[in-house]
């Protein structure tokens, strides 16, 4: 049990659990939260999980926790941990089962008011073109050799096959393809789960959503990002589907033996890991990057599907229906990056589990148009409230390994949400608020009710006040497609 008095208040938005808190910690834990959010976080076991994550061999700096943090398994959700490359460890549980789960934002020049008569048809068509739900097949079916090309090339495969534009790729984290992907390290079982699911949303908290840009907080960056107040945008939230889940399952099992082999002691078996320069670590990195590429291609194909829906609904009726990519980010990923740690430039593996890369202005890898603004950071809220578009800052590079929050963060268990909220009533309530809902499962909808989440505005206010991201625009949902 971790109490408030076990933590040191650094600023009103930053707290620290010192390394001395528990003997097996290798680094301190730094939490970005207001006292109110911190007290919410303390309702579940996420802080204990953060302390557990701080025991991994090869960690540098500190484990960083975001204000949307909540309990996960192994790592908490909303955690960033960097291990020194190549002798530090990589932990599949520190990246998660849904490898490269992430968010893509597309912007349009369609005014919300003008689009109102068409929103129902748009929601229906998006629902038809972006398959969602449990185990649902995707819009593209490929054979195994073709799947292996997707695993190597990610969004580049989509570009070659006319599902993407050059601009889409430039405006995707890592240009939509992680180097070093090794399909040979992805099991046959994972490939079988993946080859029919490319171009599908999945279930759980994943969605396709039409939003209206409700407020522009910083007109300069908003204009560079192409976001205009009162205009429609689209968010796509999904990941690597069954393929990624199987890759993580396989390696969490396989690495149980590696932990013993390398004499690593862990407080939780879900934290299994292997040195990056070991054969086991290399195998996982190759497979994880392949799954990440699958997810990039998946969101790219769904973006293509969303474009088809927009064209079919609006072409000939309204102008400005072409969807421009704003950005695509990952929030479950392990990446080799260079960061300054204690005054020294170090190559590290940044594990982001439920945390978004938030590179500041001038960071390598950003497209030229975002060099001055910093990287767009996409923070989807719950389906009845709001989502945020932020940009990364120089401070995020210094204090959080170039990372920020990834969402509102759950606060109510799924079981409680299902007990307390009826999906059908929620759907009606959302419709009354002007939000078109297409949901495959009413109990599934209830689990994702806005009441089950923290206040996304409070989460965003915290990262903004702490300086690790800057507010650009606030989005309000007008159509939600869920599995």
């Amino acid at each position: 049990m971790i109490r408030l008095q076990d933590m040191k208040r650094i600023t009103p938005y930053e707290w620290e659990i010192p390394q001395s808190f528990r003997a097996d910690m290798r680094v301190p834990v730094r939490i970005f939260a207001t006292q109110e959010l911190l007290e919410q976080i303390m309702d579940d076991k996420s802080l204990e999980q953060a302390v557990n994550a701080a025991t991994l061999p090869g960690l540098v700096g500190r484990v960083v926790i975001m204000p949307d943090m909540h309990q996960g398994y192994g790592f908490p959700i909303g955690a960033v941990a960097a291990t020194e490359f190549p002798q530090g460890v990589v932990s599949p549980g520190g990246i998660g089962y849904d490898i490269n789960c992430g968010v893509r934002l597309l912007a349009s020049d369609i005014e919300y008011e003008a689009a109102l008569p068409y929103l129902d048809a748009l929601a229906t068509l998006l629902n038809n073109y972006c398959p969602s739900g449990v185990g649902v097949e995707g819009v593209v079916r490929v054979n195994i050799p073709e799947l292996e090309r997707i695993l190597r090339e990610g969004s580049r495969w989509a570009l070659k096959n006319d599902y993407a534009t050059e601009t889409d790729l430039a405006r995707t984290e890592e240009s939509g393809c992680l180097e070093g992907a090794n399909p040979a390290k992805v099991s046959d079982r994972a490939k079988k789960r993946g080859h029919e699911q490319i171009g599908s949303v999945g279930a759980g908290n994943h969605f396709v959503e039409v939003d209206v840009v409700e407020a522009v907080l910083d007109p300069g960056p908003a204009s560079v990002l192409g976001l205009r107040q009162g205009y429609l945008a689209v968010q796509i939230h999904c990941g690597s589907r069954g393929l990624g889940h199987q890759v993580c399952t396989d390696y969490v099992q396989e690495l149980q033996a590696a932990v013993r082999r390398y004499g690593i002691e862990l407080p939780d078996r879900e934290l299994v890991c292997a040195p990056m320069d070991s054969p086991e670590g290399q195998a996982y990195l190759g497979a994880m990057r392949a799954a990440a590429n699958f997810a990039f291609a998946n969101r790219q194909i769904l973006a293509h599907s969303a474009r088809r829906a927009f064209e079919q609904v609006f072409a000939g009726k309204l102008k400005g229906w072409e969807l421009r990519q704003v950005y695509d980010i990952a929030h479950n990923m392990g990446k080799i990056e260079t960061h300054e740690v204690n005054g020294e430039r170090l190559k590290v593996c940044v594990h982001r589990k439920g945390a978004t890369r938030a590179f500041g202005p001038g960071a390598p890898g950003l497209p030229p148009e975002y060099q001055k603004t910093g990287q767009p950071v996409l923070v989807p809220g719950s389906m009845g409230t709001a989502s945020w578009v932020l940009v990364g800052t120089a401070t995020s590079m210094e204090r959080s390994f170039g990372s920020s929050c990834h969402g509102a963060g759950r606060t109510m268990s799924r079981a409680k949400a299902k007990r307390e909220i009826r999906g059908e009533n929620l759907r009606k309530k959302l419709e009354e608020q002007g939000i078109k809902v297409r949901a495959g499962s009413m109990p599934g909808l209830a689990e994702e009710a806005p009441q089950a989440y923290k206040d996304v505005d409070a989460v965003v206010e915290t990262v903004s006040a702490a300086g690790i991201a800057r507010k650009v625009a606030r989005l309000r949902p007008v159509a939600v497609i869920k599995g």
Partner: protein
Amino acid sequence: MGFEEIAHTADWALRVWADDLERLFAEAAQGMNALSGARLARGPRTRRTLSLSAPDAESLLVAFLSELVYAAEQEQLAFTSFQVRTLERSDGWTLEAEMEGAPILSINKSIKAVTYHNLQTRQTARGYEVEIVFDV
């Protein structure tokens, strides 16, 4: 013998108990079925035999349940009747399971994975007990 949901903020967690390890495995599978809310087709039953090995009992449980996750997603099959035999040997554990099930007509919740989070089978007054967290 039984199972119950336990609180977890984002995912699903089950506490499972049974008189012996074999029944614990079967009950964990039943608990997972209840979580997913699978509705099965009537008619002829599908029979399957499963052979698995793992370094310890917990890994064997994860491997067993992961097989069922895969069958549900990839083959749309859920198993509801289990005869499980486990054996501890000098080099680890083995499992043989005879299972009966049926095609899935509909499912409420997809279980992405079975985690090792704080996974430990232990002996209590109720026999064997384990808590399992599922990623959903």
